[in-house]
């Protein structure tokens, strides 16, 4: 279960977006789910850099093409979890 600490340890929050986001016109819950495995395992990556070295500005740019914005993000040892605006 979570503790209130989880409200204070984000790696990224867009406060302005969070305060202005409005879901009045939301009508389509069903999602599109895309999963791309570039490698079978992280140990198979032969380059020094990995997906997690792509900076936030790049993800924001890519997600703009999808019509999404980054609300907040949490980093753990193995993954970056982005919560998005839609």
């Amino acid at each position, binding site marked *: *279960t*979570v503790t*209130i600490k*989880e*409200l204070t*340890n*984000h790696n990224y929050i867009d*406060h302005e977006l*969070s*305060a202005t986001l*409005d*879901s009045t016109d*939301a*009508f*389509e*819950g*069903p*999602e*599109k*789910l*895309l*999963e*791309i*495995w*570039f*490698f*079978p*395992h*992280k*140990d*198979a990556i032969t*380059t020094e*850099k*990995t*997906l*997690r070295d*792509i900076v936030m500005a*790049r*993800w924001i*740019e*890519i*997600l703009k*093409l*999808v*019509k*999404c914005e980054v*609300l*907040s*993000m*949490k980093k*753990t*040892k*193995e*993954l*970056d*979890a*982005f*919560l*998005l605006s*839609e």
Partner: protein
Amino acid sequence: SSLFVFDHKLTLKTCGTTTTLFCLARLFQIIEQELSWDFQTTASGKYKPFKVFYSRRCFLFPCKQAAIHQNWTDEVDYLNRFFDNGTSYSVGRNDKSNHWNLYVTETDRATSEETDCIEDDDETFEVLMTELDPECADKFVCGPDTSTAAPAELNEDKGHNLGYQMTKKTKLDDIYLNSSQDSNLSFHHDAFAFTPCGYSSNMVLDEKYYYTLHVTPEKGWSYASFESNIPVFDLSQGKQDNLDVLLHILNVFQPREFSMTFFTKNSENPSFKKLLRIDESLSEYITLDKIVYDLDDYHLFYMKLQKK
């Protein structure tokens, strides 16, 4: 909507009228320029990463979708411009437009053979629920008149505060045996409550497994989705399986109808075996579809159930 980025893979899940597949061109460009990952292996410029999945249930309002996402055939044509080893499936009842679509590429064996690494064990469990019980849906409405004290600190944030409260109220942080009493696995949470209504959350267990929930509670088109890559049986040392997880989720949302998909690499997976007999444990529901696919190196189990 959510995005999960690992060192070697990513999962992007978006709802509404988003254009998910329009990320592909720029994504492959960036990974080539910035990571020196070059997956373009054919003269026609197609890509061959280790594996690609793209799936979705039928939309509630397909004609309101944008561009290629208005119909599955256009999406498949678009994906085939990037990948030349993909296969498309429509799973379940086509006539009632409540089936589920899947596009999956053939696994690129060359990568794992070259690096003789052990492939990730992998399972994904997804539950897509419609016509939520109104009382349950109401728990995800915060409304314009929600009395929340003004942010006490500069970086405090109403949407995330309310999201946290929704998580606690609905016990969506208590699905897996991960409370401090019964496990020492790390558990991270990020949730947001939309105004006037709606909820999104990402939970990360043991640093590398996630489950994500998205809720659109509005009457007429209420919907909730749950998706997880947590190997629940192993992580709980056999104390829990995906049937327990499903019963917890159904209890929170009490949908009139839901579909469930379970992908696993291993047909001996205890959850897979239990799920095959799941309808015996869901006395309130009748089974509309129960389908098992053998896909390349995955087993897919799909079910569609409706309240009696």
